[in-house]
């Protein structure tokens, strides 16, 4: 398909890898963060990191919504799923994320009516088809996903549905990036920017990274050549002494984003004063709730939820992985107590989680051999 095949060309990939090699300064170590879980997945799926010089290190960022959802929110979701007469809907990966007393999949096995959906519009259809049941959609995701929830709620309101509700966990990518940049734990040289988030928000909101923190960022697509070229562009900025927001994914990302999507989001959502991120703690103004105009659709107002903060399991080091402080295989339980089949931490649940990406694409074996 157009825009896909040409970005998987192995010969061009080797040529860009050669450019990267020619751009780096020997003796200097480069630490670049790929913000988005989709980039993490592509890097390991296509072996992009194998084409990089040893002194270019990729660090995984917090851009995996499943990975950053705190256990307490899962407990709230499970509590909602057990409410009588409720059909609880969510994306597939949420089913396996552990709360403090099991997963949504466990709740389903206990009799809760939990259904996987591909789109919030599927949940809306269920509400239409089941007027005598309450249908709750468990909304997660960054700015890429929030418009689909917003559009769905707008439709629900226009149709006058009274049995459709949303438990909103939408988060935004900029606040955790700022938190990471303020963190003394981590020294980064540049960022690979999240391509599809930028189709919605545009490139401009990332200006603070070069302006306030003097770091380059290149917004990148998800094919292997996209990533290689973005890495080369960051390294070139560092070599030239430049520090800018550049858009490698210009074939899709407009500078100002998708104004219609932003408009619908601002109608349906309001900022939460603060929100807990797994491994990162509470970050102010980093998440969305339903606006007053959509309060009737808020599952947390319709039903009482525990709302209790739950600490992560002691053995789990997802927080350090999410901040890029340690590599997945450096976690004490990686590949032993924590595997994709029996995940302790969220980073092992989603295929885009750094731990699952390492595990699924053979990094587990390779890194252990190195040790």
């Amino acid at each position, binding site marked *: 398909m157009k825009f896909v095949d040409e970005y998987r060309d192995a010969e061009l990939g080797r040529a860009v890898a050669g450019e990267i090699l020619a751009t780096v300064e020997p003796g200097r170590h480069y630490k670049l963060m790929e913000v988005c879980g989709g980039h993490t997945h592509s890097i390991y799926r296509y072996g992009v990191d194998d084409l990089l010089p040893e002194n270019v290190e990729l660090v995984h960022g917090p851009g995996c919504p499943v990975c950053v959802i705190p256990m307490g929110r899962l407990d709230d979701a499970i509590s909602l799923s057990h409410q009588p007469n409720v059909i609880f809907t969510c994306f597939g990966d949420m089913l396996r994320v552990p709360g403090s007393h099991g997963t949504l999949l466990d709740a389903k096995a206990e009799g809760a009516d939990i259904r996987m959906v591909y789109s919030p519009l599927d949940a809306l259809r269920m509400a239409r088809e089941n007027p005598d049941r309450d249908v709750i959609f468990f909304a997660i995701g960054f700015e890429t996903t929030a418009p689909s929830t917003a559009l769905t709620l707008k439709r629900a309101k226009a149709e006058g549905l009274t049995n459709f509700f949303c438990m909103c966990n939408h988060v935004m990518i900029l606040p955790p990036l700022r938190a990471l940049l303020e963190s003394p734990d981590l020294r980064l040289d540049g960022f690979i920017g999240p*391509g599809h988030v930028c189709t919605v928000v545009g490139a401009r909101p990332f200006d603070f990274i070069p302006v306030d923190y003097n770091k380059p960022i290149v917004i990148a697509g998800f094919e292997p050549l996209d990533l290689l070229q973005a890495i080369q562009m960051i390294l070139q900025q560092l070599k030239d002494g430049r520090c800018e927001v550049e858009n490698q994914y210009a074939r899709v990302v407009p500078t100002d984003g998708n104004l219609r999507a932003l408009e619908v989001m601002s109608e349906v959502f309001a900022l939460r004063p603060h929100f807990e991120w797994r491994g990162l703690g509470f970050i102010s103004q980093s998440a969305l709730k339903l606006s007053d105009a959509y309060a009737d659709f808020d599952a947390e107002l319709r039903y009482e939820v525990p709302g209790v903060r739950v600490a992560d399991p002691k053995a789990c080091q997802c927080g350090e992985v999410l901040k890029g402080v340690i590599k997945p295989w450096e976690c004490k339980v990686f590949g032993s107590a924590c595997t994709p089949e029996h995940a302790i931490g969220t980073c092992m649940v989603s295929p885009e989680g750094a731990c699952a990406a390492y595990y699924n694409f053979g990094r587990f074996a390779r890194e252990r051999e190195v040790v």
Partner: protein
Amino acid sequence: MDSSAAPERCITCSDEGLPMRVVQLPRADGIAVCSDESGVEHEVAVDLLEPVAVGEEILVHAGVAIAMACIPESARRPERMTA
């Protein structure tokens, strides 16, 4: 660059943007028929885009089109990647 062994992806965490081609213009409810890379047809809400035309390529996330893939040709293929 083989991807055949890839596991299923998470819609949100993968920041999924599936390229699709518009096959049938949207109905009154804003739902258009679009085909994916494999030719499989899907119902996609296109309300968040400017009016789409049959044959146009769009990016789809969670059943909703979030972007056009129709930015000018010169910007589609990064300069350094010309064969």
